[in-house]
Every structure is written in structure tokens, then in C-alpha cells.
């Protein structure tokens, strides 16, 4: 036999988990919401999601390989997650070129210019959404009327939060709580069906991809603060993007704290900013702004909450 062996540093055993398996778990967790988006908003929802995923993967490849000649990272599947999450945050009727532009901002500007996966300081999908919101405010708030699951009992096209925020406009009545949970309401493509998002979120916690800390604290803060501000906590929780944000956006690895205590601070901050925007600012929805603002604080939260090493002595 030859005497040439593989020399490698210990450990020689690995858990078998890898970046793409984690990202694909997130994609799997988003599938229920994809299905519901088709039922509620029709085939265009699927088209929008497909376009965003393909565009995000394309921009990742374009920048990483064609423009910079660096390693090809599309197989880590993180661009798929970004594309899907951005699509979830858009109204179904948005022109596709705008969605593609949002993907470019998310992948190239927010992620790759800062060094690619793990290096970005802000959640790419959120920056993509906010970019589109401030650039094309009209199109980003033009909500198509949702269908019932089988094309019946359609309700108002305006988002419930907009209805709650501007009662003087005499918008159509609020959808009832059952329709809200099932996602039969106006809103972004992926945010409406609370049941589907909860299924995905619980799946991610069960698979240990995320911990329950961030979503629980985020949503609990919204509930408590809405009581303090005299708002209906049930509606505040289900009527906007809070559930989507709490389970899928605020738990983004790269842009949220790594320690559990840090996650508590982060989620608390997200909840407070969300409710301040909803209650006192001119925007009806504040989830994406709150997560973006807390993203910026993440490195500081990490430094503040670093654990004391076992047996470590302060010198």
C-alpha cells in the first residue's frame, strides 16, 4: 500500500450540516407560504417569486464570478432565500422589472459589496424592499384584492394595517380574524397567511436552524406595546408583516446577534421600533425598518453580550 495518507486537522468527524442544507431548510419552511400566496393572489404570485429567486441567483453569480472572478457561491442557496423573502415582501402587482431591481440592490449592493454571505451588515431582502418602497412608493402600496382559496369571498385590497391607521379614508371593513389567519387579506405576497408562516417557523425551530428566542420576544413585545398604546394586540400581530419578519427576517444569521441574550435585546428593539412606527409615524407598517435599524446595532449587541469564558479570569 502507498504511505501517502490524508493529513488533516482534528476533528475528523463532522456533523454533516452545511450552509446549503441550512438554506434549503429555510426554503422548505417558506413553501407553505408560497402555496398560500398562489391560492390567495393567483399565479402571478408564483411568477413574482420565481422571478425574484432567479434574479437573485443570477446577480449572485454575475457579481461573484463574472465581475469579481471569485468563488461561485450560488450553491450555498442563500440567494434563493433572499429572492424568496424579497418576493414575499412585495405586492403581487408590482412590475417585474422593479422586483428585479430590488434583487440587484439586495444581492449586489447589500450583500456582495460587503463581502458576500455572512459579511453583510443589513438583511438583503429588507434593504431591497425598503429601496423599492422609498423609490416607488405608489407601486409598492398598490395592493391587489385577494381571492378566497377557491376564488370566493374576496375582501378589501387595502392592507388591514392601512385600514386601522386611516379610519377617516372610509376604506373597506377589516377582514375577520379567521381570514387574517388564513391569509385572505390584502398585503405583501408572503406575509398574509399566519398559519403557513407559523408552520414554517416551527419547522425551523424544530430543525434547530433558528432558536425560538427572536420570534417569541419580537411578537411578545408587539403584543405588550399594542396594549400600552391602546391598540388591538391580536390585529397588530397578524395584520402586518410581523410574523414573517419575526420568524424569517429578524433571525437572519449574518445580521442578528449570535448569543441568546443578544437575540433578546435585538428582538425587543425590533418590537419597540415596529410599534413606535405603527403608532406614531406616518407609515402603517414598521417591521422592515425596525429590523434594519436593529441590524445596524448587531455588532454592538454582540460585543455587549459575549459570554464569559468558563474559568476565565479578568486580568
Amino acid at each position: 500500500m502507498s504511505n501517502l495518507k490524508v493529513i488533516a486537522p482534528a476533528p475528523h468527524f463532522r456533523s454533516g450540516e452545511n450552509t446549503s442544507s441550512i438554506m434549503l431548510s429555510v426554503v422548505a419552511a417558506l413553501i407553505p407560504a408560497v402555496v398560500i400566496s398562489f391560492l390567495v393572489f393567483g399565479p402571478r404570485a408564483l411568477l413574482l417569486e420565481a422571478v425574484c429567486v432567479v434574479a437573485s441567483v443570477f446577480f449572485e453569480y454575475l457579481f461573484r464570478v463574472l465581475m469579481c472572478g471569485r468563488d461561485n457561491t450560488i450553491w450555498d442557496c442563500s440567494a434563493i432565500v433572499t429572492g424568496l423573502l424579497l418576493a414575499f415582501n412585495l405586492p403581487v402587482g408590482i412590475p417585474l422589472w422593479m422586483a428585479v431591481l430590488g434583487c440587484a440592490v439586495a444581492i449586489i449592493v447589500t450583500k456582495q459589496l460587503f463581502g458576500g454571505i455572512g459579511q453583510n451588515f443589513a438583511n438583503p431582502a429588507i434593504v431591497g424592499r425598503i429601496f423599492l418602497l422609498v423609490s416607488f412608493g405608489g407601486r409598492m402600496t398598490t395592493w391587489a384584492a385577494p381571492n378566497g382559496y377557491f376564488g370566493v369571498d374576496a375582501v378589501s385590497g387595502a392592507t388591514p394595517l392601512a385600514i386601522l391607521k386611516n379610519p377617516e379614508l372610509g376604506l373597506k371593513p377589516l377582514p375577520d380574524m379567521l381570514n387574517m389567519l388564513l391569509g385572505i387579506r390584502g398585503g405583501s405576497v408572503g406575509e398574509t397567511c399566519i398559519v403557513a408562516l407559523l408552520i414554517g417557523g416551527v419547522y425551523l425551530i424544530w430543525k434547530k436552524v433558528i432558536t425560538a428566542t427572536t420570534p417569541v420576544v419580537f411578537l411578545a413585545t408587539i403584543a405588550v406595546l399594542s396594549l400600552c398604546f391602546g391598540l388591538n394586540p391580536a390585529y397588530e400581530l397578524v395584520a402586518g408583516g410581523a410574523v414573517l419578519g419575526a420568524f424569517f427576517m429578524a433571525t437572519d444569521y449574518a445580521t442578528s446577534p449570535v448569543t441568546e441574550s443578544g437575540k433578546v435585546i435585538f428582538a425587543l428593539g425590533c418590537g419597540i421600533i415596529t410599534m413606535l412606527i405603527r403608532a406614531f409615524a406616518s407609515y402603517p407598517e414598521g417591521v422592515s425598518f425596525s429590523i434594519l435599524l436593529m441590524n445596524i446595532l448587531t455588532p454592538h449587541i454582540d460585543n455587549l453580550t459575549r459570554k464569559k469564558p468558563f474559568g476565565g479570569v479578568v486580568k
Partner: protein
Amino acid sequence: MPSLFSKALNGVSVKHCKNTANSAAVRMPVPDKVVIPMIQHMGAPCEPLVKVKDTVTVGQLLGDTDAFLSAPIHSSVSGTVTAIEEFITPGGDKCKSVVITTDKLQTPCPDLAPPVVNSREDLIKAVRACGLVGLGGAGFPTHIKLNPKNLADVDTLVINGAECEPFITCDMRLMLERTASIVDGIKVVMKYLELTSCVIGIESNKPEAIAAMTEAVSGMENVRVLTMKALYPRGAEKVIIYEATGRVVEEGKLPADAGVIAMNVATISKLADYLKTGMPLVEKMLTVDGGAVAEPKNIIAPIGTAIKDMIAFCGGYKSEPKKLLMGGPMMGISVYSDDFPLLKNNNAILAFDEAQCRPVKESACIRCGRCLRACPFDLAPAAMDKAYHMGNVDKLRELKVNLCMECGCCSYVCPAHRELAMYNKLGKRLLREAK
């Protein structure tokens, strides 16, 4: 025991792969040749005391030194010294080695006699003469461990039967087959060091060993068996001390500073055997396993036996070995050749086949935090990786890279396959060099 409210130390659930758990240890025949390196312990190398063409006997002193941190080395075979040559240890250190061609007679050294032990000084002298080192893997000279400066503060003996590394079962077999020796060793150490309690820590995946040890110590006051959760690395010294006593060995301190002496089951049983027979540490019970080995089993082999001879005794290779490990898969060292000899502190030889060593490609850290949740000592491996790559010594010091015991939990869980444990090791070196 740690209090109910104190935090449990992290770790990772590894596949146990204890394939050889039912394989009673078999003594292998003496090989044609042994290579006995002059450093098989933590500390200074020994100087060879024999010359080429000398005839040696089993248990004869081959090498010794006056250095404080060291342990003498004995011949594991009888035969003729055929060479004294340079040897490169798996860790990369250079030392001399004594090559002996065996005569297969295994004539014991005529000078050997059971030591007379009437005091602690006698015991420590005897342990040094035995050449005993920590057989759990670290190879720390036992006579130094048993002679702490603050002996008056030491009250507890922790016996390590955790065997948390996958594949390895030799300590478990030892607890089943040499139960009496372990108990005798505990009695001797407790008596002469005047220790008041003893805890034997065993992972819950070895119920037979737990039962055997519990029965063996049932009549003994102040000795108890602690069943630990099978969560790697329960067998790491600081971890098992914490599990057994709730005490924390602080940075830069020794277990004795926490009032504890920790010894592996193999070390304590060898100590007892030496006191009875006077035969120093010349052979080792170990596990030979891995996908490329035809008949994995536990064997007793003379120190200095080449890996290939041990594997030949275990039916040889059944497929091309791609990786050879001295030790377990979590902390073992990969060696490039099966000519390497068995050392005192080896407890396993693993020959991995192709399927067991698929190369992994590193990718960027995704900040998932798995390494933080895995690290038993609550270090921040990803941050240390970054600091190491930026050459930031101050940051490495602040992050306490020096506390890393290189257990490998961080690398094990890393989804980006980053070699975090290796970067910690390199970071520690960077820190030492900067001082």
C-alpha cells in the same frame, strides 16, 4: 456536583460508533521490531541510556532525564538495540528513538521487583519509576500530578471513565476487565494523598461499565460513580472535574488548585498493577477500528509496535486506508504513515476508509452561532477565527483563545466547514509568540 441552577457545560452529540464495545482485549504477539521514541509524555525528552547492539529485557530502563517535567521510558520487549535514530513525533517534535529487534522471548528485566510503598514519597517515587503518564491522551507525567504544591487543599480524586471520543472502547473494557485494579489504585491514591472523596465519572452510554464500577465500589465510603450525559467532551479534564465536583479550574491554574486530582481509569489501574508486579508501563490496551480495518477489536500491544503490525493483527486492511489516526476522531492526530509506533498515551488507532474522510471545503462563516452553542468553555470560536486571520493578538487575548482545549466541538458543528479548532490552536501559538 454542579448545583441544580448552574449552567451545564455545552458539548456536541457525536455518533458513538462504539463498534468494539463487546470485544475483550486480546494480547497481540510481539512484533519483530519496535521503535520507542524518547518523548511519550508532556515535558522534556529522555536521553537514551542504551547503545546500539545492547541486549535489553522487558521493563529495562531505556531513557531518562533529570528534567522536572518528564517520565522515564522502558523497553517493552526483550531483544537487541539495532539503532538509535531521529524520530519525528506525530505532533512534529523531534527526538531520539530506540529501535529494538525483538527476540520474542519477552524475558523480564531481572531488576524488577514490586516497590515498597509506605509513604506518599515512596508512592511518588514508585510512580515515576513506573514511567506512568496520563493515559487518557494528554500524557502528563503522573508522579508530578500526584505531587501538587498545595496537597493540603486537595481533597477529591476524580477518576475519568468518560471515554467520550467516538470509536474508542478500551477504557470501557478496562472498567469491565480490570475493575479490581482500578479500585486498588483508587484506594492507594486516596490513602497516601489523604483524599476524602472520589468520584468515578462515566458517560451514560456505557451502562455495563457503570454497573461494574458501582458494584466494585459499593462497600467503599466516599467513593461514588457518577453517570454523565453522553455529550462530548465529558472526558475533558476541566469538564469532568466540573461535572463531578462543581468546581471550576480557573485560567492558568491546575486541577489541584481546585482541590482535585483527576486521573484516567487506565492510569489508575496501571498504577495498581505496578505496585503489585513492579512491571513498568511497557504495554497499552487500545482500540483498533475504522472502516479500513478488517476486524476491529481491543488489543494489548507493546509500546513501540508499528501501526501496521497492530492492524495486521486485526485482520489487516480490508480497503485502502485514506486516513490514519492516533487517538479518536475528535482530537486524534492524523499520521502520514503506518510505520508510526504506539506511544504510551495512545488509546486508539483508527484507519478510515475513503467514505470516512471525504474532503470538506471551507466556505465563509455565516454567523449561525453554532460554534458558540457547542463550545464547552463558552468561547467564541468564530470571532477567534476572524481575529487569527487578521493577526489581531490583542483581540485573541481578549477572547481568551488560551482557554481553548482543542476539543473540536466548534469545527464539528460548523456548517461552513471552517477549521475553527485549528485556528484556535494557531491563535494560541500567535499569542505565545507575541509574549
